[in-house]
C-alpha cells in the first residue's frame, strides 16, 4: 500500500474541488486533489451557463478557450406561448464549454502547486478519535492511504464522503430536480439569449432550457420533479419539434433543498453539490459552489497553519460562506416554494401582466393591484411573506 501525507486532500476535481485546491495552494499549503474519473470535466452534467461574478470570485479572466456564447438576456415562454424578454441583470453571462473550463480550472490549481491524481476513487475516510484525518483511495487496483489535516469533500451529488463522516446529507427525492439534456446541432435560436419554457405538459415542476453555444449548437434540456415520467421522456417530446440532431446526452440531478444542515466536522469540509450549494430557484450551482469552495480552501489552509483542524476551528468556514451566499440561497428557497404552487393559469396571468412592460420599472402599486385581483397569487404571496 502506498502511503502519502498532505496538508489538505480534496475529493472531486470539478468546479468545487479545483476552486478549493486553487485557493488552498495559493495560501502555501500542500494539496492533493483526487478525481475518480479518468478525465476531469466529463461527463458534463450542466447546461454550462455562468454569471460574470463567477470569474470575479475566482480572480481569473474568462478565457476564449472555453467561452461558447455571450449572453445578453433571456426569453421566458409561458405555458400559453406568451414570451417575456428579460434583458441583462441576472440573465447576463456566458455559456461555457465545461469540458475545457473544468480542466482549465484544475490546471490553475496545479499551476499554483496542487498535486492531482485522476482515475483515483476515494473509497473511505480515515477516522481517528472521531476526527477525519485522511482518505483511502484506489488507483488502478492499488490502495493508497493519504493522511491529511483537512479533507475537503467536493464529490458532488454522488457524495459519500460527508455521510461517511457522520453528516446528514441524504436528500428527499422531491427536492431533486431530475434532468436530461442533449447538446444539439441545428438549433435555430438567437446565440445571445437563453430560452426557458414553462408548463405542466412541457416540464412538470421544472422547465425546459435552451442555452446557445454558437453556430446553431445549443444545450437543450429538461429538469422536472415528478415521478410519473422521466425527464428524458419530456426532452424527447420537446426536441421532436426542433429540426436538430443530438451529439451528446447529459443527465444529472440538481439538489434544490438548499444547503445541508452542517457543512463541517472535525477534519472535514463539504462544498458544492455535496453540500447543497445550489440556487433552489434556478438550479444554478457554479457560482455558489465556487464561492463556498474558495472559502473552504482558504479556511483549510489557515487551519493547517494554526495546527487546528478541529470542528471548532473549521466552523469558521460555515460562518463565512453563510455570510456570502446564505441569505441569497434561503431567499431563493422561499421563492421556489411559491413557484412550486403556481399553476399554468397563474403563470399565464403573470406573463400577461409583465408582457410589454419594462420589468425593472413595474411600480409596486401596479404589482399589488394585479396580485389583489388574482386571489390565488395573493394567497401565495401572503404565505411567503
Amino acid at each position, binding site marked *: 500500500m502506498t502511503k502519502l501525507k498532505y496538508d489538505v486532500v480534496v475529493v472531486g476535481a470539478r468546479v468545487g474541488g479545483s476552486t478549493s485546491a486553487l485557493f488552498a495552494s495559493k495560501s502555501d499549503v500542500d494539496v492533493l486533489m483526487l478525481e*475518480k474519473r479518468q478525465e476531469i470535466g466529463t*461527463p458534463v*452534467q450542466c447546461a454550462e451557463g455562468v454569471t460574470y461574478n463567477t470569474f470575479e470570485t475566482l480572480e481569473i479572466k474568462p478565457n476564449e478557450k472555453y467561452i461558447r456564447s455571450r449572453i445578453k438576456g433571456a426569453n421566458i415562454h409561458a405555458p400559453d406561448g406568451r414570451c417575456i424578454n428579460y434583458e441583462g441583470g441576472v440573465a447576463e453571462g456566458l455559456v461555457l464549454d465545461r469540458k475545457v473550463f473544468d480542466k482549465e480550472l484544475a490546471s490553475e490549481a496545479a499551476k499554483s502547486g496542487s498535486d492531482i491524481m485522476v482515475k483515483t*476513487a476515494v473509497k473511505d475516510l480515515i477516522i481517528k478519535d472521531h476526527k477525519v484525518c485522511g482518505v483511502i483511495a484506489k488507483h488502478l487496483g492499488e490502495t493508497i492511504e493519504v493522511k491529511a489535516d483537512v479533507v475537503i469533500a467536493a464529490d*458532488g*451529488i*454522488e*457524495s*459519500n464522503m460527508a*455521510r461517511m463522516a457522520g453528516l446528514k*446529507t*441524504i*436528500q*428527499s*427525492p*422531491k427536492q*431533486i430536480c*431530475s*434532468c*436530461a439534456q442533449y447538446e444539439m446541432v441545428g438549433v435555430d435560436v438567437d446565440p445571445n439569449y437563453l430560452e426557458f419554457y414553462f408548463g405542466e405538459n412541457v416540464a412538470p415542476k421544472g422547465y425546459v432550457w435552451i442555452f446557445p453555444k454558437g453556430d446553431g449548437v445549443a444545450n437543450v434540456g429538461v429538469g422536472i420533479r415528478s*415521478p410519473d415520467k*422521466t*425527464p*428524458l*421522456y419530456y426532452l424527447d417530446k420537446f426536441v421532436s419539434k426542433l429540426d436538430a440532431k443530438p451529439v451528446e*446526452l447529459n*443527465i*444529472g*440531478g440538481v*439538489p434544490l433543498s438548499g444547503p445541508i444542515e452542517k457543512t463541517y466536522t472535525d477534519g472535514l469540509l463539504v462544498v458544492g453539490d455535496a453540500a447543497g450549494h445550489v440556487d433552489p430557484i434556478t438550479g444554478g450551482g457554479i457560482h455558489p459552489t465556487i464561492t463556498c469552495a474558495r472559502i473552504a480552501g482558504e479556511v483549510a489552509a489557515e487551519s493547517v497553519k494554526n495546527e487546528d483542524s478541529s470542528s471548532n476551528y473549521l466552523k469558521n468556514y460555515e460562518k463565512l460562506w453563510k455570510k456570502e451566499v446564505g441569505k441569497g440561497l434561503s431567499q431563493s428557497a422561499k421563492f421556489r416554494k411559491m413557484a412550486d404552487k403556481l399553476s399554468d393559469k397563474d403563470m399565464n396571468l403573470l406573463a400577461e401582466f409583465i408582457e410589454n412592460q419594462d420589468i425593472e420599472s413595474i411600480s409596486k402599486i401596479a404589482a399589488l393591484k394585479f396580485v389583489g385581483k388574482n386571489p390565488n397569487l395573493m394567497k401565495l404571496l401572503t404565505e411567503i411573506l
Partner: protein
Amino acid sequence: MEVQSEYCGYCGSCVTVCPEGIIELAENGLKVEIGCTDCGNCVYVCPMGALIVEKDDD
C-alpha cells in the same frame, strides 16, 4: 430495487436519496449492496428510468 444497467447514465442522483446509503457509483457501474428496503426514492429521481421497484399488488 432492480437496476437495468443498459439504461443507467451514471449520474449519481440515486446515491444522494438512498436512506440506506447502499448505492455506490463505482468504476464499472452502479454497485448496490444488500439492505435495500424498496423505498423507491432512487426510482423517483432516476432521469433514465433505469431503476425498478416491484410494487405490491394489494
